[in-house]
């Protein structure tokens, strides 16, 4: 290194490697073997402060989920699935907690979370409606079923109603092809549907939700 401040000349001895885009086949081998990638680059404490959970008990739930899978190899997916099942989506603080505890960059986790259809990065409603668009249901008219649901709920698929009661999603086959067209609401499966049956089904869920709420209030 020579020169004076303001006009320095530096000779770099160790250079960073770059990928030559012209030659890269996108095979991902360099990504897999890079040792730095899986080291968490810890920022200072202030920047590390995690987003807050909606409820104080949530953190314990996530801690429990992580503890359950800690010794498994390749445990990211089972952990995210359990979190997703508990909250109905993947809240930011939970992902940050997973990142800290598994010592895995948040970006890596978000890459997995955004790849798989089962995960949602936005809050979803209490009941998730999955309209089957498998081939069996498709030829038996499930697109019309979906349209009827969109009209009844005043949302498009992928969206959630304002009261956070229903989220409308499409699924590529739930394996009920012989009873097409089919859909799933929460954990219940319905087969041999017609668009005319939609309002009654939605109403029964809205009512049972109303009952649950009333009971909770009475109990609480």
């Amino acid at each position, binding site marked *: 290194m020579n020169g004076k401040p303001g006009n320095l000349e530096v000779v770099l001895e160790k250079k960073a490697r770059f990928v030559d885009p012209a030659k890269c086949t996108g095979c991902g081998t360099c990504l897999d073997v890079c040792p730095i990638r899986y080291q968490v680059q810890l920022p200072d404490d202030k920047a590390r402060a995690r987003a807050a959970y909606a409820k104080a008990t949530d953190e314990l739930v996530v801690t429990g989920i992580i503890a359950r899978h800690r010794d498994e190899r390749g445990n990211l997916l089972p952990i995210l*699935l359990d979190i997703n099942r508990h909250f109905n989506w993947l809240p930011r603080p939970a992902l940050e907690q997973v990142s800290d505890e598994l010592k895995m960059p948040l970006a890596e986790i978000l890459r997995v979370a955004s790849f798989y259809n*089962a995960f949602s990065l936005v809050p979803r409603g209490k009941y998730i409606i999955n309209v089957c668009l498998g*081939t069996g249901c498709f030829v038996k008219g499930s697109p019309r079923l979906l349209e009827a649901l969109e009209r009844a709920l005043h949302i498009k698929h992928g969206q959630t109603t304002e009261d956070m009661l229903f989220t409308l999603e499409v699924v*590529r086959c739930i*394996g*009920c092809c012989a009873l097409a067209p089919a859909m799933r609401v929460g954990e219940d499966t319905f087969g*041999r549907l017609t668009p005319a049956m939609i309002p009654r089904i939605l109403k029964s869920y809205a009512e049972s939700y109303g009952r649950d709420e009333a009971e909770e209030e009475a109990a609480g």
Partner: protein
Amino acid sequence: MKLRTLEQLEDLKKKGLALTYPDKLKIMVGMATCGISAGADKVFEALQAKITELGVDAVLEKTGCIGFCQREPLVDVVYPKKVRLSYQAMTPEKAAALVEALKKGEVYPENLLCRIDQEDFLVEGQVRPYANPHPPDLGVEAPRYEDLPFFGKQVKIALRNCGFIHPERIEEYIARGGYQALHRALTGLTPEEVISEVKSSGLRGRGGAGFPTGLKWEFARKNDSDEKYVICNADEGDPGAFMDRGILEGDPHAVIEGMAIGAYAIGAQEGYIYCRAEYPLAIHRLKIAIKQAEDLGLLGDKIFGSNFSFKLMIREGAGAFVCGEETSLIASIEGKVGEPRPRPPFPAQSGLWGKPTVINNVKTWSHIAPIIMRGAEWYSGFGTDKAPGTTVFALVGKVNNTGLVEIPLGMTLREMIFDIGGGIAGGRQFKAVQTGGPSGGCIPEEFLDTPVDYESLGALGSIMGSGGMIVMDERDCMVNVAKYFIDFTKDESCGKCTPCREGTLRLGEMLEAVTEGKASEEDLDKLVKMSELIKKTSLCGLGQTAPNPVLSTIRYFRDEYLAHVRDHKCPAKVCKPLISFHIIEDLCTGCQLCRLKCPAEAVEGAKKEPHRIIQEKCIKCGTCYEGCKFDAVVVD
């Protein structure tokens, strides 16, 4: 208790037989996902309530799916040492009436599907008649199980126990010869002998590609490694297919036993079942089954006192179709993004965590135990020379009898659709049959006499695939079907390689233009050219086969494409931009049904006077067309 000897297994078998065939009345309800969605849970509750109310001395059980989904909910009544009767399309009311009849000692005559006089104990090669020596006269008319074309033409090997045992009870699986094959393999055969038996049976991968299973095992066996793995691919992503779900929900131990034998053969100590999260019941039943097998020492350390130990784990998918591709599936188990990688190296060389791995489909695994028990020669007696054995299809779409069917390979498509399937529903005209899911193609009527096997279907531009068989009739638009599949692969493309990611997007846009009547004849050639390009240049099976639905529909239904681009008409009257609904005044009685049902308020007209559709408001949902009792609504 841990099972160590054959005697202990036989003892448990006796217990299992007593459970499966009790000395009193037994009522069974088919409670797989399909049955439950058809209302089997309500039927079960009604039966339970009535049995308690009347104090009937009977056992009430849940079983898996016997395959005849069309007729669900199915209820079976087993009269000890007499006969088993199958009832179809049951309702809670009829279920109550059934119990009342039983209380009176009568045979309930309604909704009878068939009578079963004997059961096939396939693994042991025995037939177990209910009554000895002669089937009793019931005083009611019921066809025999074997005489129904739906069942009679099937050969059930993978589905041997589905609908006959309680899937959550390992004793009942053992009662029908379960875990005998594992015992034989571990105590009497070397790993090489197991492989050679599977090899000479000619079993080929039932996931669709048809690679010889024994050969795959041999590769993995020969690769020296301290760790090896077996994986069961239960990521049944093909839309319109539910064979794997049927097996896992109806007979999970068949898969577990097959995997244990496979692990012994290649020298693996651990295994994974990768099941899609959309099948909660299958995962639930698998967990129970694994726990039971562990408790009996059929999984775990030193199975049957041998030196072979095997641990089995379940991994849930997270809704990515591409994870059905083996290298993606392995990446997903490793906790990574499910993207494929180029082969070689094949998983048998370097698979899970870089170790030799054998990955087979649910159906393939469930064939293993019978092959070991009955021998390669017996197995290869079914099917054709090049493709021995049987395979399971999910027969769905516009056929009368939808359901899960297992056929010897080489049966013609016509036999499957018109004999087993009972022809096209509603007396309409057959148009095409689609096999192989999004990787397959549509086969027209003139090729209905083609035998079902890997090579014959491949020659038609389709593939055998994992077993989805969707029948389409004259009301299905083939352009729309091609667009549907491309939409699917476009959504499910992982995005790693450009031909698949961009190509399916462009194909989708071009097909969209065709269905809107905005394309020209030259565009059809462009579609073909681009499809060929995607096939040649994509990284994995998803992209390499994604254009098949487009190519096969253009090949066999070119006139339908031409009608869209030349005349701007959709012959099947499906593509919304090309159709309109009208009411024929002379036929309309003014009953008001369509006006009340129309979600867009696009029908006008006074009571008892002909109605009219306001085209500007019409959203073309078809409600009026399907609701009209006088056929006064027409589509142009």
